[in-house]
């Protein structure tokens, strides 16, 4: 099972919407990274924008750009990953219930609170009757959506599939996750995140979409495969999972030209990446990205966007260097991400 990335678009804190690959985290008014959002009026019918929550606008805008770039009017499937879905609308409705004591509630935020609202709104705008899914399993959300895509392209070789990973952050969700010890406050992510070895990662958000198919022509990169694994009993099990995934695709660790790892600045879990680097990738280029995107459950979609850009442009931008070893032709890139050493995922990209 493999597929080609024919089009891509990321709305992220690194100002990536227009497609340039400068990679600067530039928007952090609070203690977390928020997206540099495009002017939605240019992209979405203004009458519809008014009623859309922010995460829906981000999802719809990135999707429409992705489709427009390759002049695809109607995809054969819309498959999304979003761990927390439309939190802003969920909070709004919950607030009304608590404050108004279950009286005089307005339905708008309720009907937009379901996790498949983003995928559903895209279908509605495109009048697209195709297969429409929303995967919502923490940091497996995007990976499950990607696996579905790869399986469908085996089942339906001519399909063109819109695939995306979307999550938003709100002041409330940040506050709760910060109290839970998941996030910390970081004022300047790009320089400060890894300086202090402390608990908690930097919160972020993003909307990243792709058009995937079996067509290699003009593709950005090829997705060779995706694999998830859950709660490895020790580092050895994680290492073995990675090595067997590579060998299933006919690769040794040395043949991976760069590994994009999900370093998040959380001292409790970044050690997992250190251990994998030491045991499996001692001589490989190690890249990181969460100081650009922030840490969120579907951030691996951003990593896949970045990986595809690296292969297309054949560059290793300094902003992503965690451990730069050597400049070389970028043929194979592995993305390795994990959340709290619980959900681990691997995505293998290659040049077409």
């Amino acid at each position, binding site marked *: 099972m493999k597929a080609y990335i024919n089009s891509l678009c990321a709305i992220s804190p690194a100002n990536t919407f227009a497609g340039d690959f400068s990679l600067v985290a530039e928007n952090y008014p609070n203690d977390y990274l928020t997206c540099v959002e495009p002017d939605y009026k240019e992209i979405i019918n203004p009458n519809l924008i008014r009623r859309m929550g922010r995460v829906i606008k981000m999802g719809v805008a990135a999707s429409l750009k992705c489709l427009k770039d390759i002049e695809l009017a109607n995809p054969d499937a819309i498959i999304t990953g979003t761990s*927390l879905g439309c939190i802003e609308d969920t909070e709004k409705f919950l607030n009304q219930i608590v404050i108004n004591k279950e009286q005089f*509630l307005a339905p708008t935020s309720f009907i937009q609170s379901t996790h498949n609202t983003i995928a559903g709104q895209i279908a509605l705008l495109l009048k697209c009757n195709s297969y*429409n*899914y*929303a995967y*919502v399993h923490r940091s497996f959300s995007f990976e499950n959506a990607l*696996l579905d895509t790869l399986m469908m392209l085996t*089942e339906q*070789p001519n399909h063109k599939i819109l695939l995306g990973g979307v999550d938003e952050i709100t002041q409330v969700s940040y506050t*709760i996750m910060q109290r839970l010890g998941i996030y910390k406050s970081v004022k300047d992510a790009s320089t400060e995140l890894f300086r202090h070895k402390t608990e908690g990662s930097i919160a972020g958000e993003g909307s990243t979409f792709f058009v995937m198919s079996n067509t290699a022509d003009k593709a950005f990169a090829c997705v060779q495969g995706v694999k998830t694994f859950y709660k490895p009993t020790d580092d050895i099990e994680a290492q073995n999972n990675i090595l067997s995934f590579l060998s299933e695709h006919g690769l040794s660790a040395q043949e991976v030209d760069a590994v994009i790892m999900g370093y998040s600045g959380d001292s409790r879990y970044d050690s997992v990446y250190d251990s994998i680097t030491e045991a499996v990738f001692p001589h490989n280029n190690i890249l990181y990205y969460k100081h650009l995107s922030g840490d969120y459950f579907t951030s691996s979609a951003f990593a896949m966007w970045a990986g595809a850009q690296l292969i297309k442009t054949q560059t290793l931008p300094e902003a992503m260097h965690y451990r730069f070893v050597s400049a070389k032709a970028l043929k194979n890139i592995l993305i390795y991400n994990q959340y709290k050493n619980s959900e681990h995922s691997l995505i293998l990209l290659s040049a077409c």
Partner: protein
Amino acid sequence: MQPLFKYILMNEKVFIAGIGIVSAIGFTVEETLQSLRAGRHGVGSITHLETTLKEQIPAAQIKKTNNELKHMLGLENNEPITRTSLFGMLAAREALTNSGIDIGKYRCGIVSATSVGGMDLSEHFYDDFNADRAQGDLLYVKGHDCAESTERIANFLGIKDFMATISTACSSSANSIMFGSRLIKNNVVDMVLAGGTDSLTRFTMNGFNTLMILDKEHCKPFDAKRVGLNMGEGSGFVLLVSEKIVSEIHKNPLAEVKGYGNANDAYHQTASSPDGQGAYLAMTTALAMSGLHPEDIDYINVHGTGTSNNDLSEGIAMQRIFGDKVPLFSSTKPFTGHTLGAAGGIEAVLSVLAIQHNLVYPNLNFSEQIPELNISPVTHLIENVNVRNVLSNSFGFGGNNSTLILSDC
């Protein structure tokens, strides 16, 4: 008939080797079957949820507290566990036990589904948090997300090889059975525990109430005078297995997953289209995949919520496909209530039981045909009828429409 596309029929077949269910009409498969046979429904006044709506609106609640549910699971600790997780653990455990398969020998995954996740506990947290952002017991919110219940079930049963959670509103767990089946066909795993779980919450009760689609009496799907739905809660799981496993366990599976289809109505965020296009495409896609003809379907377990809009749209889609030969059909939601993200899993279990026991369930409270339609549901329990192929519909917000076709084997 125009399906969305024809699934390439990969050789691998997928079977159901075990079922588990918990809802307002029973804590086990056996209890559920007894209730269905006796015509005993689960809709009544709300006793296990603090809501101002409880005086006015009935629901199909599971009459046990969270502590009692924990006791049933042998979990004797004080940690708050969401009701959604507890239902899921009960139903999933039964599905595994029911199959008699030693999962340790195979690559086993779980695909679960939920619409509200841990909202039942988050609501407690939010009451305090809303007044002061430093307040609110964090133990009540850390299980808010949809994956929480899935990981609880997986940890409880020792499932580790694959894991996913789907949330597409009220079609969620039909979609988890569909994805689970495809995982087996694509040789990602050998077996998948697939289904879903949801609990009643103030959030969803009030949400549907603001849409003015809750019936203040016992709901009457497909009736001319239907006014809305009754909410429910519970969980339904099936154990999906590959052909290879069936050949190794020397035991007949309960049913085969013969077809499935998902389509989007692309009409409105909450309302169904007048011509039932999404429902039509989901059903025709599933039929095309199954290789069955419309006349081979013996029973349709309809989505049939009891809202004016759903039942008319679904009925029109059925008439478009089956013409004047619409099979026997009924909504089982007057028994279980509408269990949202769990509905597809619960109704898949009921569909398997219909095949196993040659039953067609009554659509309670029906008395008068919808004037725009020329079809009526089954009103009395039918026994000793040959039920070989069942079509089960689940439709949700966001225009998400799914159909499963389950068959005898």
